[in-house]
């Protein structure tokens, strides 16, 4: 549910602030390959001004730096599993999946792997669905309504990205404090 809602907001935003016609294609490709909500939001203003690709890559590294540390807790658990499955699980190592997967580490190994794969696939589909539908709705609206009206109506929606950062930051600080104790 969370994934679809956030995805919908991201889709609406990227279609409203970007190229309305290409938005559904862009939404589908980026959401199915990136699986990073933060980047989906952060890329919108950058792509709108056609920032250089290198800038966007640097931004990705900064924004998603935390992902580089998620894998460590999975190293032991995900040893010796089929390459494709492992590759997919690594791709789907998002904030939410990571939280669920670390919480399920007490499960038996086989069950844990199945659980990880299922929630990854489910969340993946929810996310792609949300983003694509959001972009598609705005794309259809854009044919009937003045694009500037859509832009005005979605004014302020870019706060969703800041809110996402704030939430991540709050959780990081919370886990940091609880570890120090």
């Amino acid at each position, binding site marked *: 549910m969370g994934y679809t809602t956030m995805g919908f*907001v991201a889709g609406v935003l990227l279609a409203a602030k970007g190229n309305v016609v*290409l938005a559904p294609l862009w939404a589908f490709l980026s959401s199915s390959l990136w699986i990073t909500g933060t980047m989906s939001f952060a*890329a919108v203003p950058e792509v*709108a001004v056609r920032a250089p*690709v290198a800038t966007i890559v640097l931004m990705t590294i900064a924004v998603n*730096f935390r992902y580089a540390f998620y894998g460590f807790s999975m*190293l032991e658990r995900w040893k010796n599993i089929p390459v494709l499955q492992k590759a997919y699980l690594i791709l789907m190592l998002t904030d939410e999946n990571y939280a669920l997967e670390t919480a399920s580490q007490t499960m038996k190994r086989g069950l844990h792997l199945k659980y990880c794969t299922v929630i990854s696939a489910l969340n993946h589909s929810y996310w792609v669905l949300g983003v694509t539908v959001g972009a598609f709705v705005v794309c259809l609206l854009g044919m009937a309504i003045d694009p500037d009206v859509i832009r005005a109506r979605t004014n*302020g*929606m870019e706060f969703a990205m800041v809110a996402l950062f704030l939430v991540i930051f709050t959780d990081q600080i919370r886990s940091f404090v609880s570890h120090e104790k």
Partner: protein
Amino acid sequence: MKSEILYMLCVVAAVFAANYALRALPFVAFGGRGRELPNWVSSLGAYVSPVIIAALIVYSYAGLQWRTPWPFIAGALTVGLQLWRRNPLMSIVAGTVLYMSLLSCGCVSVPSDNLKSTVAHPLVRVTRFGIKFQDKLVTPEESVKLLVKHGVPKDRTLHVLVDDDFDNQRILWVFKHNYLDRAGYTKSVWIHERRGESGKSDIKPPDGGVTIPYKGRMLR
């Protein structure tokens, strides 16, 4: 259109690669047997990630209406809710809705003095929906009043952008001669967007008009 798709694909591929590399890093670097995870790695994660996110928050606030208190009020609500209920979706949606409603209440002061008219940012735009002043639909009278109110100099060139799907020559002529010229904005330049090869249009801007090639202006 073609270059736009190419750019889009490049961004998708580049972000995908960077993102995947980050996630796969621990598996590649410490995937082998018998290698212990060094302690500094986990402490690096614990310290560096929040610092980066904090920097991003500051950076992204710059893109908001940060001269007003509204983004900070909405931010406080988001953090407060997240601390209290630990429900990310609820915190994000509540903060965003609050920010959007604060903005649309008109409590936001928009810097209003001495606007400049440039080719990159034309103040007035003619669209098939009507005349727009800074993306707000206005009547021709209002557009002239707004130009005067915002102190746009009359002796300088005034850039008017004509959308390429706008095809009423008469309206352009009337707007120029009956409104802009009468109000003293005689040095108007009409920028007419020409989109790629496919979207050629026959309409010519009134006297003193220029035609500029389409440069992804739709991506505004």
